[in-house]
């Protein structure tokens, strides 16, 4: 059983999207909420063993670890029909039960405390798989547990499993509404540093964009968490579709990620999905073609990351991978790519070969979709730096006023000084600079000249 992937769900947000993700996977593979195979799914040629393993009684158990510092969300999961799906040993709720109080530092330091117990679980899962390929981490970067504990676990994962891939699905906070978490900019900045240095691939899920899509595209006046989360789980399941439904190519995680990320630091990916539908909305079924899907994927309004248009820098795509599902004729793909190239719909980096890569994937046979073709775009775009710049700006605003730093000073890491914050800011600033540099043709020598001037 090659290329297994272990999912770690952290904090309130992480557990919620994780829950939706497993729900989605179960329905795609024909697995009941109890983990048993549905009668119609016994003949399947899909690969369930990437994300599931089988217990002695043949029922499927997700390779999933649920972690939280407060019991609320996990309890609600345990009260859902899917309670029996998870391995109870893999659910860890901090005994203190107080949560991290939306404080990164609190989450991080609690991580140190519960390290042994958490890594017992992770090690057990890792040993249980034949050739583990990597980890997928679901969390948000704004709160306390997902960001703080998540940061800590990211660092430790990198130490313990240096050859394994670590992919995260990171939820970025909504910028349009005023957050009740006042220290959000601190939390985000500190987490961003870990995401830059310890994660191999970060799929950015921007709550701003997700809300916008829900209201504008899906016409939901007041989108609920679960509606947003089902958008996210959809992205997560499609982006792993080629692993679960093997075909000619992209049958391992590395084969998906490696072409998207040319240089190790620039590993923040945007996503886009089309056609978007909700359960309520059935009437608006339109004709989908490969060209139509690919064109829509290139439109900013379908992107799940909201980035302001920056006129000063020529932002461009570093790489694009389109995962197209459905009844697709390879010739159509070829023609669509040609059309997109002719119309110059996508701008690419000037310093290397880049094009839209396409992965054709099968669809789950058990889920009926009204649309013939659907597509997910995973894109590495330099424009994402705007998101980090925004975080930096907000951080600078708070930091100037030295606001809300008391709660941080309570924790060990910050008792003596606030160097950690400064160091994180530098790392994120460098990341932004590198993204901007990647838009220029001399990106390859950019590092060298700067390095030589420094020395």
């Amino acid at each position: 059983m090659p290329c297994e992937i272990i999912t770690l769900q952290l904090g309130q947000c992480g557990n919620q999207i994780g829950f939706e993700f497993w729900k989605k996977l179960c329905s795609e593979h024909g697995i009941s909420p109890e983990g048993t195979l549905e009668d119609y799914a016994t003949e399947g040629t899909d690969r369930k063993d990437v994300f599931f393993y089988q217990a002695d009684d043949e029922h499927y158990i997700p390779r999933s670890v649920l972690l939280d510092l407060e019991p609320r969300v996990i309890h609600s999961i345990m009260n859902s029909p899917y309670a029996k799906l998870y391995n109870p040993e893999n659910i860890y709720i901090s005994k203190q039960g107080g949560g991290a109080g939306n404080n990164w530092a609190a989450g991080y330091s609690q991580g140190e405390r519960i390290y042994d117990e958490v890594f017992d679980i992770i090690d057990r899962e890792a040993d249980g798989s034949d050739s583990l390929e990597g980890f997928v981490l679901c969390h948000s970067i704004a709160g306390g547990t997902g960001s703080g504990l998540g940061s800590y676990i990211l660092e430790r994962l990198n130490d313990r499993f240096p050859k394994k891939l670590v992919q995260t699905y990171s939820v970025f906070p909504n910028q349009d509404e005023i957050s009740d978490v006042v220290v959000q900019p601190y939390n985000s900045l500190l987490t961003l540093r870990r995401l830059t240095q310890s994660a191999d691939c970060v799929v950015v899920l921007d709550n701003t964009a997700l809300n916008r899509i829900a209201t504008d595209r899906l016409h939901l006046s007041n989108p609920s968490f679960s509606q947003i989360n089902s958008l996210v789980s959809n992205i997560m399941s499609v982006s792993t579709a080629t692993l679960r439904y093997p075909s000619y190519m992209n049958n391992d995680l590395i084969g998906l990620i490696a072409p998207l990320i040319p240089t190790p630091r620039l590993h923040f990916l945007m996503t886009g999905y089309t056609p978007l539908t909700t359960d309520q909305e059935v009437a608006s079924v339109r004709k989908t073609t490969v060209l139509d899907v690919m064109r829509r994927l290139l439109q900013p309004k379908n992107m799940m990351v909201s980035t302001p248009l920056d006129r000063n820098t020529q932002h461009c795509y570093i790489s694009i991978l389109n995962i197209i599902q459905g009844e697709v004729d390879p010739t159509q793909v070829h023609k669509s790519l040609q059309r997109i190239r002719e119309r110059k719909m996508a701008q690419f980096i000037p310093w290397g070969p880049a094009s839209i890569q396409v992965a054709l994937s099968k669809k789950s046979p058990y889920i009926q979709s009204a649309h013939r073709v659907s597509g997910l775009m995973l894109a590495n775009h330099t424009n994402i730096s705007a998101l980090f710049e925004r975080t930096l700006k907000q951080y600078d605003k708070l930091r100037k006023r030295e606001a809300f730093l008391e709660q941080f000073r309570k924790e060990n890491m910050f008792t003596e000084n606030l160097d950690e914050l400064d160091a994180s800011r530098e790392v994120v600033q460098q990341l932004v600079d590198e993204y901007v540099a990647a838009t220029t043709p001399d990106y390859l020598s950019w590092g060298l000249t700067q390095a030589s001037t420094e020395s």
Partner: protein
Amino acid sequence: MSEFKIHHHVSELFSLLGIQSDAAEKYTETLSESVQRFISTQVSASSAVRILAENAPNPQAFLSKYDELKSRNVRDLDPLVVFLSGLVEDESVRKVVEGSSKLRLQEDGVTLANVPSIVSDIERAAETKLSRDQLNELRDRLLRESQVMHTPSEALQSVERGEKRPLCLGPPIPSWLKNRPYLSLDFVKLENRQEIGALGDVSSTSQEHQLIEDVLSVMMGIEGRYITVQLPTKHYDSPEFTVDPSVEPSLSTLVSRILPLCGYYSQLIRFVENKSCYHHGLVNQALSAAITNLIKDYMLLVTQLEEQHQHWALTLHKLYFYVEKTMAVMDMLACVTRVISKSEAHGGAVLSILHDRTVSLTGCGQLQDVMVFLTQSAAVPYMNILAKWLYRGIINDPYNEFMVVDRESGSEENEDEDLADDYWEKRYTIIPQNIPTFLQVHANVILRTGKYLNVIRQSDHSVVCPHQEELVYSVRDRSYAEVIERTYNFASKRLLELLMKEKDLMGRLRSVKHYFLLDQGDFVVQLMSLCEDELSKNIDDVVPTRLESLLELALRTSAANSDFYKDDIECDLQPITLMTQMLRILSIETEDEREYYPQEERLQLTGLQGFSLGYRVTWPVSLVLDRKTIACYQMIFRHLFYCKHVEKLLCRVWVSNKVAKSFPLSASRTYTAAFALRQRMLNFIQNIEYYMMFEVIERNWQNFINKMQKFKI
């Protein structure tokens, strides 16, 4: 007809002709073009003959030769002529052939250098048409290639065998047939003829009476008193008659008008006698029997005439009037038999001649009826053989008359192995000269029908065509065509059912696609990571059994586990690289390719370079997935597999690079150029994989599936 095959044959031909030329490419081109032309246009032979005649040093001789061959009904004469005229017109080819044939003539010590060699070659080829002359071989090769998919050497062998066999067929001919010449009335010479006086001395009435008596006896094959007979030198020619010169000229003219009839009779009798021998085959015997029937009627006529004569009611004029109609029929019969004897036709060829004649007589009422009767009777044994072949797939053909020949009877045990490879192409082949012309259009259908039935039978299924009808020859309503069509439909349907339903051919092909075309991606990933250590060794150090068990493991642990046919997959290590293998197949040896030949490659070959999968197929699926096909799949597999391997290596580099993101900025930036290079390589390999897999393989697979679905049972 593949380009490579032509290429191969051209290079072989070149070496045969002893030409050291690098221009093989050019000739291949011209040839493949001309192959197209041969198929598309039925070039009229007459213009070709004219061209040849113009170029020949002795046009008259050439034309007469051509006519003679034509009269012998030689097959493929027209295509040959067209081909030769093409040769003559093509300067470059002519030069080469000229040069080489001169060389050859010198080598052979033949002093014919003054004869323009190309024409002499043509003449020689024409004269020795049925022998195995070297040019004939050339012609045979090229023409067969252009028409049927037989390999040329095979076609030649068939010609050889077809000629040699008849000599030793059937039971021996009893000696009394030769010892007793009186069994049929055909001018057996009386030893002692009485000397008689000249007939001219008596009155003209007596002369006429006597002549009528003589004519009547000559009509029955008995030499008359005043009409003498000289037997011909060749058995198929008519004897010559001499009338007593003293007879009145008016009578003698009348008699000489009737006399050809007697010649026809003699020819027919001799034909019947001759062809009744065993080795001439069933068709000839049936034809003889039919002619005997006709002769019986003829004899009846003679008897009736004689009766009238005895009542003194017959004059020569009357006699001529009575026999005139019969004469036309006999003339025609004699003519047909003559052609048959002359061309030594046999089996299907006889029927061809009969049929052609029948068709050419359309509108001639009675004459055609007679011909139809003859053809029908002669076709009975042939049609019986055909029916057996069509309904049961059995060839019962003791005299090699049938158009299909079984090359390999008796060794059915090893059909799973070597036989399957050649079975489809070589087991049953068509003998072109044995196809009756009226079955020409159905020839391939007939061949296939029986072939299908045989395949079904050899797969342990008894099969008999349900609606068996007797096959009868007819000119107009082509009832036999319908029957052939129906049985063909039945046989092909059964075979299709056998292959598709019972043997699940599509399932097999899908499984081949999973493994050889890497459709089952997770299996390949699994296999590659399992076998990596083993395959990175030198190919001589790889342990096949270990590889086999790793393959097994990969099959069981991937999604391939649900494939029903996964156990038929096996490992196959080949001691040459893919490049060398392909070069060997193409057998092109020009300067460009030569540099790709590695030196002593076996020493450096890793297991990975030689690794390939094998696939065990059983009869009758092995007909479709024969060794050649599997070899093609293997080549594709080796290429794709190696690409995958390279991709894997690049991905591994990526993983080892990821540590750089936690480096301080100044350190990590120095690597950027290297990362970009790696990315460029990865980009390339993934794009080429995508192209091969989705745009080439998957697209063609879809086409294939669509086509297969059209032919649903």
